[in-house]
């Protein structure tokens, strides 16, 4: 097991190198010039421009820029943004906010989605199942940004919820309970959007897996053996139907930091999404690279976790390795 994990972690290294190479060169070869605005500012002198070019390393060929970036990345130094702030500080400011949002959403979707999927599968083609199908189709069909805008308009018209953000401006003067209520109030709308959208997919997936398993010969055999229905479903069907879901959980883990970017943007949520979007627009290379690397590592890590969980859950896989 340990050997397997080490092997997997070692496999990450070439992956990171490839991802970083591709993304670095694509960003640098795109025609976005971080200094275009400065160049068109009548009061900026040529010396100032040259100084900026030097500071941002733009005077060197791309491969040297890449090497110097890679060197400091290996040392754990993420460098500075083009505005001169530390990338690590910027990320640290935003990561907890994004984690808070995505963790709540993932927790809720799994707590609600899995049982709903099972229920839908057991009560296949009843009124309950049909209703769920309609609701989840709607959930899957609505684009997240559109749903978010609808909710924002709702918030403005009713005044029940704040329009975007995470805390009110007088947050620091609130009592602890006040603070919790304030944050919850701000979280309600973005959570609703993300929850509705990911719930539908998860619920449908679980239902499909469960149906497939319920249709298999060993379930028929178990039923024929006279086992109670609850035993058939929870002991035999569920254990087998959950495997694909564990793989899915790995992907969800990868989405912890980057999955909510669009919704974050619409709700002006102070998470990573807004930060990275702006960085891409301005070709702020260190910031973009840091977030891409983070995304890659999270994806690989998520897959690894899913594999380990699968091994624990499924004796067949354990045996194969």
């Amino acid at each position: 097991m340990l050997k397997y994990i080490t092997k997997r972690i070692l496999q990450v290294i070439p992956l990171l190198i490839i991802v970083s190479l591709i993304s670095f060169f694509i960003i640098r070869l795109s025609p976005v010039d971080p200094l275009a605005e400065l160049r068109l500012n009548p009061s900026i002198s040529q010396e100032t421009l040259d100084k900026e070019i030097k500071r941002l390393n733009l005077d060197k060929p791309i491969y040297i820029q890449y090497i110097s970036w890679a060197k400091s990345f290996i040392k754990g130094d993420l460098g500075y943004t083009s505005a001169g702030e530390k990338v690590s500080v910027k990320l640290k400011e935003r990561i907890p906010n994004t984690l808070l949002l995505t963790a709540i959403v993932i927790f809720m979707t799994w707590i609600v989605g899995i049982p709903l999927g099972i229920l839908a599968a057991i009560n296949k083609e009843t009124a309950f199942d049909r209703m769920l199908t309609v609701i989840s189709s709607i959930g899957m069909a609505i684009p997240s940004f559109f749903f978010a805008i609808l909710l924002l308009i709702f918030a403005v018209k009713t005044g029940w919820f704040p329009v975007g953000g995470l805390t009110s401006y007088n947050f620091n003067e609130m009592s602890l309970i006040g603070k919790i209520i304030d944050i919850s109030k701000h979280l309600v709308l973005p959570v609703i959007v993300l929850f509705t959208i990911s719930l539908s997919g998860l619920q449908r997936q679980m239902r499909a897996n469960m149906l497939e398993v319920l249709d298999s010969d060993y379930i028929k055999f178990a039923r024929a053996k006279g086992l109670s229905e609850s035993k058939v479903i929870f002991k035999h069907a569920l254990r087998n139907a959950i495997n694909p879901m564990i793989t899915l959980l790995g992907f969800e883990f990868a989405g912890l930091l980057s999955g909510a970017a669009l919704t974050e943007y619409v709700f002006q949520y102070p998470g990573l999404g807004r930060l990275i979007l702006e960085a891409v627009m301005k070709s702020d290379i260190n910031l973009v690279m840091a977030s891409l690397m983070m995304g890659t590592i999270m994806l690989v890590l998520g897959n690894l976790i899913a594999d380990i969980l699968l091994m624990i859950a499924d004796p067949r896989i354990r045996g194969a390795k």
Partner: protein
Amino acid sequence: MKRVLVILAVLIFLGIVLKACVRKDMPEDVSIDIKTPDLKEIVYPTDEKNVTINGIDYLQSQAPVGKFGGELVISTIGEGPKTFNPCNTKDATSSSMAGLMYDGLVTTNPRTGEVMPLLAKDIEINSNDYIIRLRHGIKWTDNKPITADDVMYTYNEIVFKGYGNPSTMDAMKVDGKLPELVKLDDFTVKFTTPRAFAPFLRQLSYPIVPKHYFKPYSDRGESVFNAFLTPDTNPEEIVSSGAFKLKEYVAAQRVVFERNPNYYKINLKDEKLPYLNKLVYLIVGDTNNEILKFEAKEIDALSLRGSNVAMYKIKEPNSDYVIYNLGPDTGTLFLVINLNNRRDKNCKPYVDPKKQRWFGNRDFRAAVDWAIDRESMVKNIASGVAEPLFTAESLNSIYLNKYIKGHPYDINVTKESLEKAGFKLKDGILYDSCGNRVEFDLYTNAGNLEREALGVMIKQDLEELGMKVNFKPVEFNSLVNKLTNTHDWDMAIMGLTGSPLEPHDGKNVWTSSGSLHMFNQRPANYNIDDRLDWEKELDEIFAEGAVKLNFEERKPIYDRYQTIIYNQKPIIYLYSPIRITAIRKKIKNIFPTSLSGLLYNLDEIYIDGGEK
């Protein structure tokens, strides 16, 4: 049958709903008078005065006495400040926030645009000498006195070394030389410029920083200094001088300032300003979110754009806000024509020689100018919230040449000019005197919807004359590259922000060796004198304007430059947007001016009424 009925019912229902929506969203054709600036009714009493109480030199506000307390919540679009170091600000948000925290020796009179003392008590100018006397008894937020040492430190160790944002150093240089600075006593310093240089005085608005707080960082070199006072600095430790001090910064959410009890401005009752307890900037990502926040009453002021103006104006009588028209802003939109007649390294002309003949002909440029319908541009593209523009200085500039009245759209004048220049119209197609078809490219930066719309309109206007215009929106950076490096373009629609106070800031655009002399860009270190007659005159004007110190002496000089541009038309100006802002009625002591906008006097603003 039943199914058909159901579908029909649904369709009818949808139709009604959509109809209702459409009707509600289309502003009815109410003629709204947004054009009249309502600034004249509200005039600030008189200028601030110096008052000495118990040996402390205060600055006394002349605005009506207000109520203390309360908070003002406004917004800033984008990702918020990048730094609170006033010497290292490179974007508008950072510099306005750092500007709240650190005052300069002088400031601009928000009404007249003149230079007036701020941290300095007064300034004595004897030709090249500027003797600056500081206020006695005023303090930093940590109660240490503000003295000449802080001024000496700020200029000698930050500005003159080019630390942080070096634009002030660039602007202070006269023929490559910096002014001299000597300390006369603890509260007096003297600057001496190498020769008379008018733009110098305004540069003294550079923020003065506390030596005891900044020096440990600036001593460790420029990179340490540039990373100093980033937004995550603990607000408690920041030492500042301005009306407000930092209380809290929350990334991507807000910046909160609180009143500085040590501030040196007082009201008419000799009470210390500012009135506001707290000043909150919410960081919002885009204008749509800003509008939502204003609607939800989370923010107190909103700058309105385009079609929103009409909507808010209709709702104004029954609302809790007032709308102010602040007049045209400093932004200009223009059509620039490439007069370049040089060749590149391979002896290939940058601009096709036949086009050089057209563009170099003043009558051709005049024909283009008269063919542009600015009125309908303002109406259709800017939703009426703009003013046609004919001058190189922006409409709120104190140096605006008021004698240039502009001209209407008149296709007959165009036709006459074209005829005079030897162009002939045959079957709706325009040919030059050598029989070449008039066809050229028009560039602008893609993605800017306003400029793209302008391009389409200009193309239409010019094609009515029989010209063929290939309108090509390109990526912003490629456009900049064409304008500043490769010079292979014919016409372009661009915009620049100007300074309403100092025309000399435009020298990079107007002098023949300037780095943004777009319409006839010369390579760096170009030493052949191929200046056009009027380019020579512009060079002289900008050299002369810089050494004249009096506004009265400078005004006619800069009037002349605007006349030259208007007559020669290398750049054809289109329009300037008008700034319109809505602000809650509970906010008092608002004295909007076209130069400084609405919220420039945050230290005098107070809140009266409202539920807060």
